[in-house]
């Protein structure tokens, strides 16, 4: 297995794809976080002024945590593409033939690939998290998130990148064609998913269907985390515990603000997204463990 891991790392490092996708991922995370942080700083200022008017002082919210999650959610497109090409490009370029001929079994090739792309998913996640963090530092003029909160949001972002990588890999392995895989994934995660989630949640805010969908649950993983941290912050400022309805309303608004309308709590979202990932990932690997390589 060590040999195959080494081979898989070499496959990645001897071509340009890994940095050709990593650089725009950094740019997007940084730029998006920067812009979003500027926007949320303005929003935070407005809220602070409003709260100040009601007599609550020291009410500075770190809304830039929302910028952090949005930027990282957006940047997950790149590790997703990277994962989508993992097996599909080998299939389309027919290098899979040699890969299977030089390994003791297909399962070992696919297993090694899964491990290596898990590592790469983490690499992407860490880099994206760093870039997004830098972005909110540049873009926020007010209060930055607490270090602990910040770290938790980054961790969920990294986890999201990892899962997106593996989900992409699974879809690519299932479809077997890079073009088909990229088309399906980019259209869904970049366009159809987000719009559908907005429409569904907008038409019926009580319906948490969006939070069950792959993209919605992925956004919930990060977005609900940020929303939770904001809630804690506000609760500390206000000093009272809201009732269930108020809590629900706040979550809805905060999660939508974080780019995850209709999402469940972070840990549920994480589980749902992990389940989606497992379905595609395992399905893709099983498909290739049996497929005829012609």
């Amino acid at each position, binding site marked *: 297995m060590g*040999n195959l891991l*080494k*081979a898989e790392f070499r496959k990645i490092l*001897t*071509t340009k794809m890994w940095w050709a996708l990593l650089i725009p991922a950094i740019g997007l995370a940084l730029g998006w976080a920067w812009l979003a942080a500027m926007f949320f700083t303005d929003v935070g200022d407005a809220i602070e002024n409003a709260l100040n008017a009601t007599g609550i002082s020291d009410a500075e919210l770190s809304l830039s945590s929302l910028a952090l999650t949005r930027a990282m959610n957006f940047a997950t497109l790149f590790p997703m593409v990277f994962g989508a090409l993992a097996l599909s490009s080998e299939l389309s370029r027919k290098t899979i033939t040699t890969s299977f*001929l030089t*390994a*003791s079994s297909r399962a070992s090739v696919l297993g090694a690939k899964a491990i290596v792309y898990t590592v790469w998913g983490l690499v992407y996640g860490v880099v994206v998290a760093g870039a997004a963090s830098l972005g909110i530092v540049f873009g926020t003029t007010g209060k930055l998130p607490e270090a602990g909160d910040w770290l938790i949001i980054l961790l969920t972002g990294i986890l999201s990148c990892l899962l997106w990588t593996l989900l992409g890999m699974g879809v690519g392995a299932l479809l077997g064609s890079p073009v088909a895989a990229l088309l399906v994934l980019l259209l869904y995660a970049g366009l159809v998913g987000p719009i559908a989630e907005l429409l569904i949640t907008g038409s019926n805010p009580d319906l948490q269907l969006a939070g069950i969908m792959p993209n919605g649950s992925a956004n919930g993983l990060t977005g609900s985390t940020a929303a939770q941290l904001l809630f804690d912050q506000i609760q500390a400022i206000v000093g009272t515990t809201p009732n269930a309805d108020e809590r629900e309303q706040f979550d809805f608004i905060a999660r939508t603000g974080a780019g995850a309308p209709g999402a469940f709590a972070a840990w549920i979202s994480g589980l749902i997204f992990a389940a989606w990932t497992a379905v595609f990932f395992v399905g893709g690997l099983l498909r290739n463990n049996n497929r005829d390589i012609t």
Partner: protein
Amino acid sequence: MARTNPQAKQEGHVQDGSGRIVVQNLTKHFGPVAAVQNLSFHVEPGSVTGFLGPNGSGKTTTLRMLLGLVKPTSGWATINGQPFNRLGNPARIVGGVLEAQGFHPGRTARDHLRVYAAAMGVPDQRADEVLNLVGLGAAANRAAGGFSLGMKQRLALSTALLGDPQVLVLDEPANGLDPEGIAWLRTFLKAFAQSGRTVLISSHLLAEVEQTIDQVVIISRGQTMYYGALEDLRMSQQSRVIVQPADPQKLAVALQEMKITNVSPTPDGKLAVVGATIQQVGDIAAQAGIALYGVHEERADLEQLFFRLTAGQYTGQMPYGQAPQPGWGAPPPQQGYQQPPGYAPQQSYTPQQSYNTPPQGYATPPGGYQQPPTPDQGGWGQQPAPQQPQGGWHHPTPHAAPHQPTGWEAPQAPPPPDSSPPPTGDSGSGSSSDSGSGSSGDSGSGSSGGNN
């Protein structure tokens, strides 16, 4: 060599290190398409075996099943006594070149090899060794995407050689190679086999590999058409005398009187005589007072034999008319049918029969060896049925002279399925060394018996 191969002992826990390839009753259906049907053969170490067939005949599918890339519908294939996926570290035992396209275009040749050197656990310097071996040393740092087809073939071969394997399986390795490259490949493969290792090489061109291979497996439409030593196939070819007489009919009768019965007209008005020398034909013509405008001897080359064996691929259409050529007889397929153990002759005879049937196919044969049973050739008239064009010649004097069992007649009247020999006897005898003693005589007499 093969038995003392240390890798064989280390790597495969159960593989026997023999270097043998065995394909047994291998069948693969892709949906309704039968790509490979009940294919059986084996390849021994120390020899280069050619695996020949036209495009789409199932060669690649067979090799892919052998290498575990395609799952057989039924049957099995082993290397060193084990299926591919139980070889342990397979690349140290068998090197496969299945396509010259399996490269990332942006990866350099050296990097490509280092990826797979890592996968099979051989040192990185082996990458440069094999690059130099195949003559790509100077292109090591160039991206494979910029390689010519010939260079890609060399790179593919070098990949197969990375693990210093005991068995080489190459699918159309000469495609795109320049003449120099083909000559090099020939020498290389021969030397490889002479060191006691095994080479199985596929091609759709017999001429391309004719000088390289010792054994040959010829398939068409997923079925074995011939399996045995190339030398035996070569021996099976017979010469015939092409004669252009003033009066072909008269000469045919004269020849028959001299017990030279295997005479057939060519489409351009000549006669093809089998079983006689130029001198005999000339003497008989002189005695009969028939002027001869030309006499020469023709010998079917292997390529033509190959054509004939594989012509069933697109039977029925035959737009070019070259598909049947029954006049050249089919001793090789007859032999071949009897070689593969467990082979079911019923299936394999079917295509042969069918390409004898459509008469229009004979109308414009470029080879001109076959008897055209079309109406415009009716001057030769006596052909009773297109299935037995030669019988037409013998029809006037059907019992005058018994046919020589030359095998020339064989394709004219392939035994119908129900009269073909049962497969059981063949499967029992099946060893490749018997192939030389194949019974072309038997098959010939069998078919001529039908004519008589």
